[in-house]
């Protein structure tokens, strides 16, 4: 899993690629949390994520909840792999899509 940040001026795009599993989620959770603290508008670009498990979905839920609590905008841009997992969990409408 690789994480890169791109500041467009109006929002911060966080590009994440590779496989998101239990080995990666502690690091991912921490990085996204700091990004939410320091930015008002964030897009998580997950279009190059090829695998996500329930621990990764948990990070997305936590991040969304934190953004809502802090009145920040968090949007997701999804790969087919991530979308299919969110649909299995009936979570596709829980998140705001980019």
């Amino acid at each position, binding site marked *: 899993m690789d994480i890169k940040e791109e500041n467009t001026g109006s929002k911060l795009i966080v590009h994440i690629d590779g*496989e998101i*599993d*239990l*080995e990666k989620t502690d690091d991912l959770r921490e990085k996204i949390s700091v990004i939410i603290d320091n930015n008002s508008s964030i897009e998580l670009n997950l279009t190059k994520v090829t695998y996500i498990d329930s621990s990764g979905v948990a990070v997305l839920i*936590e991040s969304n909840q934190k953004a809502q609590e802090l009145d920040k905008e968090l949007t997701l841009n999804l790969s087919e792999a991530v979308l*299919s997992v969110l649909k299995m969990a009936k979570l596709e409408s829980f998140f705001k899509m980019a």
Partner: protein
Amino acid sequence: MPSKTFKAEKSNLLLIREFIKKFIIKNKIKDDLQYQIILAAGEASMNIVQHAYKGGDALKRIKVDLNLINKTLILDFFDEGLKADSSKIKPRKLEDIRPGGLGTHFIKMVMDEVQWGESKDNWVNHLILKKKI
């Protein structure tokens, strides 16, 4: 019957998935099922590391056996961690949106049968996942 034993570490979850992926591709399982089966198997492996081994134990093992019998894919997971209490392993309600509790839901949604088998050869837990293909 492919069989492989892995150290019970988070870093090996990817290797377990790759081992299973190689088998299902070799056996020409339909593309739309491949990702779902890998997800279910990944969740089962993760549960072992997370719960049976409390986050992982490099001195302990996970064994994975793969079989395809009469068009049924059978995945056997063995571990030597804490004994699983199957009565306490339940998915959360999907409408109760919160982190956690989805892994068991994914496994049950994808697989046709999820059962606990007999422990043998000093393994503590034996999880069996079956899927007709």
